[in-house]
């Protein structure tokens, strides 16, 4: 038996329905991957919620599906949080400065009276003037009059106490010798600039 091709010169063609069917078959894996992608995205969102509970809590539930919108919202929240951090840090710094300042001034005033109580049997101390202006100047003027001799115990004690405190100071003295009176007029300037 001999096979004879009766349609040897016939052009090979597809029916439109065949082409459409072929397209449909080709689209199936596309749709399948699309579904997989959607599931994948949901898994990623779920993982995101678990991994970043705080970040996901600040984003409204609905917008977590829109990933790019979520990232933008998180960045916006972070920006406002950073502004708040700056305010908190400024406030903390200001309180720290105030606490340090209050503590220092209290200590300096205390060192004056402490010095006096240490030498009160040896010298008389007369407070002449005090001037304190925050971040500007702090100066004390006083007279130191020893009961006996010419050793100015208060002046020495006060300066010794001041040297144990953290601020720079400068003490100036002028001796007053009149008849039997030995006295010292002293002025102490404490540098409180920057406080």
């Amino acid at each position, binding site marked *: 038996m001999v096979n004879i091709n009766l349609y040897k010169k016939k052009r090979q063609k597809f029916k439109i329905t065949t082409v459409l069917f072929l397209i449909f078959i080709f689209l199936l894996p596309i749709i399948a991957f699309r579904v997989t992608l959607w599931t994948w995205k949901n898994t990623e969102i779920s993982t995101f919620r678990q991994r970043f509970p705080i970040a996901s809590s600040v984003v409204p539930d609905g917008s977590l599906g829109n990933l790019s919108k979520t990232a933008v919202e998180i960045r916006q929240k972070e920006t406002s949080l950073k502004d708040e951090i700056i305010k908190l840090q400024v406030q903390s710094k200001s309180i720290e400065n105030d606490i340090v300042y209050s503590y220092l001034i209290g200590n300096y005033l205390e060192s004056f009276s402490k010095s006096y109580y240490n030498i009160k049997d040896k010298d008389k101390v007369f407070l002449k003037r005090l001037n304190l*202006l925050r971040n500007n100047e702090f100066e004390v003027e006083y007279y130191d009059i020893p009961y006996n001799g010419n050793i100015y115990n208060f002046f020495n004690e006060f300066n010794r106490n001041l040297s144990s405190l953290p601020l720079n100071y400068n003490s100036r003295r002028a001796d007053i010798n009149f008849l039997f009176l030995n006295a010292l007029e002293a002025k102490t300037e404490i540098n409180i600039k920057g406080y």
Partner: protein
Amino acid sequence: MLAIKRLYGLIIALSVFILSLVFFDLLPFLEMQTEIATMNSAAISFESTYNLHKNEAAKLRVYSETIAPGTAEIKKIADFFREKGYTHLFSGDTLSYSGNMNTENFTELMSLLQQIELTKIEQFSFENPISLPIQIGEEKENTIRIQILLLKTIPIDKNLIGG
């Protein structure tokens, strides 16, 4: 019946397949990967910032508790002025006084000022009008001229720590 060349049919079907693959799968996949990376990076940065904010707020709360006794300190000094009958200005967080004061009360005031730790002495200026002024610690009839005494509590913005 409509028909097209088999090769053209195959090309059309494959083109649809490839275009769909690119536009419906590949590009959304790449976009999703980028978005997830961006979102994770934003979240990591956010959580770090959040923790910093939490720490700063906690620090400020501690400071708030630390400086709270300052109100009692300034009130104690205001009570001193009131009890001694000195006209002063007191608004809860600021106290100011200027005027004369006898040495006994002045010594007491100085003692109070030495004790304060959480109240700021913003300004304090006095002088003794006589040539050999007061002797510290001893009572002596004399008058000290206080040009200005300005005390303030350490301020804090309660809104920042939530109340």
